[in-house]
């Protein structure tokens, strides 16, 4: 029996999260769970597909938890999944969005790392792949994409937290998303969710050359951040990765942008207080609520500015 009593204001294990994905699928006919691949340790990579019909509609992609210790991101993704599902048919904006587009949500992009944070090392960030000839484990999955791969802004040291891996897409978690994005071919917006420095970022991270759509992305970011801040006053900065935080090569959204996905963004969710990656569970729902307002701006802009 499904209880429907999942606590979105608490942190959960991977098994609990996967059960909740099944629950959402059982509750809402337009929500489907699909497996896009598996992790290094053979855990399934589950994506929720929100689709009200049509074939290969233009789509929006959201993912969370590619850095496993950023627990508020996986938790927020679940709240967001529930929000999308429950608002369809009642909220005009979401209804209109899902009547035109599909939405894909990957709540746990790095399941091996996530399980490891629950069982062995709460501070684990990378994947769990073994590196031949190294005593260290794991690759930074946000340095493993084929966009400036291996350049400055990532480490070649396999023991580093920002190790880029032996070659682009070496991590099955990354390769699975790459294959999915390529085979879908009609993804119009891609948002990757991280924590915790309160930023909304757009490409590039590996080069100082501004993206051709810089002005539009900057304007959308300003609007999204204004919406986010309107709820609890959380202060966000926004801009390109390299100008706003630091040079980072091989990053997710640099690759998606270069694939032609204009609306490529990455969030760094809140740290109201002095918690870092250990944001108290009572802040999950407020974090998700404010992030949702910004996401809506990005999604509505994508819907209204189809290219």
């Amino acid at each position, binding site marked *: 029996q499904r209880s429907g009593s999942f606590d979105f204001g608490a942190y*959960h294990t991977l098994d609990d999260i996967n059960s909740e994905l099944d629950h959402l699928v059982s509750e809402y006919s337009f929500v489907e769970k699909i497996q896009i691949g598996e992790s290094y340790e053979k855990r399934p990579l589950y994506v929720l597909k929100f689709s009200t019909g049509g074939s290969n509609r233009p789509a929006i992609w959201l993912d969370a938890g590619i850095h496993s210790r950023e627990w508020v991101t996986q938790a927020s993704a679940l709240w967001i999944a529930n929000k999308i599902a429950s608002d369809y048919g009642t909220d005009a904006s979401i209804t209109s969005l899902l009547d035109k587009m599909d939405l894909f949500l990957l709540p746990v992009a790095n399941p091996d790392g996530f399980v490891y944070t629950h069982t*062995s090392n*709460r501070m684990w960030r990378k994947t769990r792949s073994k590196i031949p000839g190294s005593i260290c484990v794991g690759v930074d999955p946000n340095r493993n994409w084929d966009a400036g791969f291996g350049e400055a802004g990532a480490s070649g040291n396999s*023991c580093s937290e920002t190790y880029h891996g032996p070659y682009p897409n070496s991590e099955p978690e990354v390769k699975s998303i790459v294959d999915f994005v390529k085979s879908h071919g009609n993804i119009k917006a891609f948002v990757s969710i991280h924590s915790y*420095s309160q930023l909304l970022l757009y490409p590039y991270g590996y080069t100082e050359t501004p993206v051709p759509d810089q002005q539009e992305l900057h304007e959308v970011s300003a609007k999204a951040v204004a919406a986010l801040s309107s709820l609890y006053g959380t202060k966000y900065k926004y801009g390109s990765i390299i100008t706003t*935080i630091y040079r980072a090569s091989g990053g997710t959204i640099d690759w998606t942008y270069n694939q032609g996905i204009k609306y490529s963004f990455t969030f760094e969710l809140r740290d109201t207080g*002095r918690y*870092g990656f*250990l944001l108290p*569970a009572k802040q999950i729902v407020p974090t998700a609520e404010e992030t949702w307002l910004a996401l809506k701006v990005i999604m509505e802009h994508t819907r209204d500015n189809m290219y």
Partner: protein
Amino acid sequence: LETFVGHQVLRIKTKNEEEVKQLQLLESLEHLELDFWINPSATAVPVDVRIPAVSVQSVKAFLESQGIEYSILIEDLQDVLDKEKQDMAESAQR
């Protein structure tokens, strides 16, 4: 299970490029086993770093000798983790 007893997380605020470079030097010292939660980049962005118990004194001494401003973000990481674990257990119970 890896524990983090005595690990501290410091927030470091740099005033100029020279201080950023000093932190980048610190970042390269592998024996300290520092975990940069936010890496040193520009003076506008604070640097957060988790420091194992054995390295806390040396890192603080280094920062103080260089006149680099810092504050303690997390006094003892394990205390926070224990609280998180307790919250999860209570939530699961509910």
